[in-house]
């Protein structure tokens, strides 16, 4: 089952701290939300470990 990164933008504080930690430069803080490039993300989990409010998580993608 493929795993994906899930960003909960309703709790993200937009501090941008995770951005320079991403080895793949996949995270991007746009005008009002955090997004990531699915092609670049390797699911290394560094951003998940950093986030002070647990706004980023890994979730199984369920094919419907």
């Amino acid at each position: 089952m493929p795993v994906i990164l899930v960003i909960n933008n309703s709790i993200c504080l937009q501090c941008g701290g995770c951005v320079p930690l991403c080895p793949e430069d996949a995270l991007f803080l746009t005008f009002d939300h955090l997004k990531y490039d699915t092609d670049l993300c390797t699911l290394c989990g560094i951003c998940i470990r950093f986030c002070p409010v647990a706004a980023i998580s890994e979730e199984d993608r369920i094919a419907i």
Partner: protein
Amino acid sequence: MRYDAVVVGAGPAGSMAAYEIASAGHSVLMLEKHSRPGIPVCCAEGVGSRGLDKLIKPRPEWISAVINRVRVIAPDGSHTTVTLSGGGYVLDRKKFDYDLAGRAVEAGGRLECGTIGLNLTGHNNHFDTINIQRSSGGSEKIEARIFIAADGVESRIARMAGMDTLVELDEVETLLEYRLENITVSPDLIEFYVGNKVAPKGYLWVFPKSGSSANIGIGIITDGARGDDAMRLLDTFVDQHYPGGVVTEKMGGLTPKYRSKGQFRLGNLLVAGDAARALDSLTGAGIVNAMMSGRYAGLAAVEYLSGRIGHIDDIDRFYPGCFLEEKDEELSRYRRLKNMYTRLEDDDFIDIVKALKIHFAENSTDGINAGKLLARIIKTRPRLIRLVRYIL
């Protein structure tokens, strides 16, 4: 559009840079991602008055609280309170950043909010165009002769330009801060709680905004831990110490380590403030360093734009040269201190607070700052207990 200079980020670093460039009569465009400068606040808002006063005369409306005393609280609850001779401020960053950007505009700079610098293009580290995107939609290519990246910890512009801005997880602090209202605090006192139960490898702070509100935050090293430990620890602290408090704002952030000469310039791209990692690794203090680096970057850009510098590499003398001359030694020392600090055990903290008590009973606080003082004490760490006995 074409400008002499483009500054990305209208925080303290970017606004100081743009002010210098505009004051010298050159055209400068400031790009700010958010709808106005000063938001969102990701800051404890504390600043030493000496450092700030040297750079700018503070307006009364920028100051939420005037700080005269610092208290350090050890893991066993013992504490020492020091009266500062210089003192400091807890700022209102929303007003402060807004006014600093306004000052650059009054000097002739142009400010565009709701814009992101998407990419920087050029040849052989000589950049000539920045592609910007507007929150209202649409993009535009802006040409300039020199670029200043003052885009905060994200430091995306420098990364796009090809600089290695990657921060290692084991050398950053995860920060979380609440604005707490409806509490009772001394408006002239800042508090630091230390110890590995309260804030592993970091510290917890209480910075008053008034007699009834404060910025209460925590910084911890997340290596081997989880960032949201910061939230659990902060919640525990707030519940215990300020049970009636109301959280009106939450702020996050990170303190990367200072890199000395590492991240200040690539060709005609000058990097300033948090984007250049120009902050005190021990306390995370960045406002004065950002303003100073921004100011020097702006002055260096003026040297280049006015033709007084022939080759771009000669700009080093001015930037980061002037900044490093003034700050490198101090910031490098803080970085070393931070490395030592993370190795302290709770018993060390208790002894340090004891030593502080004695030190300040006997010494004036003239010109003292937290870093210098900690340096003095941590240096004697192996003999700390013997030292305290000796003084006693």
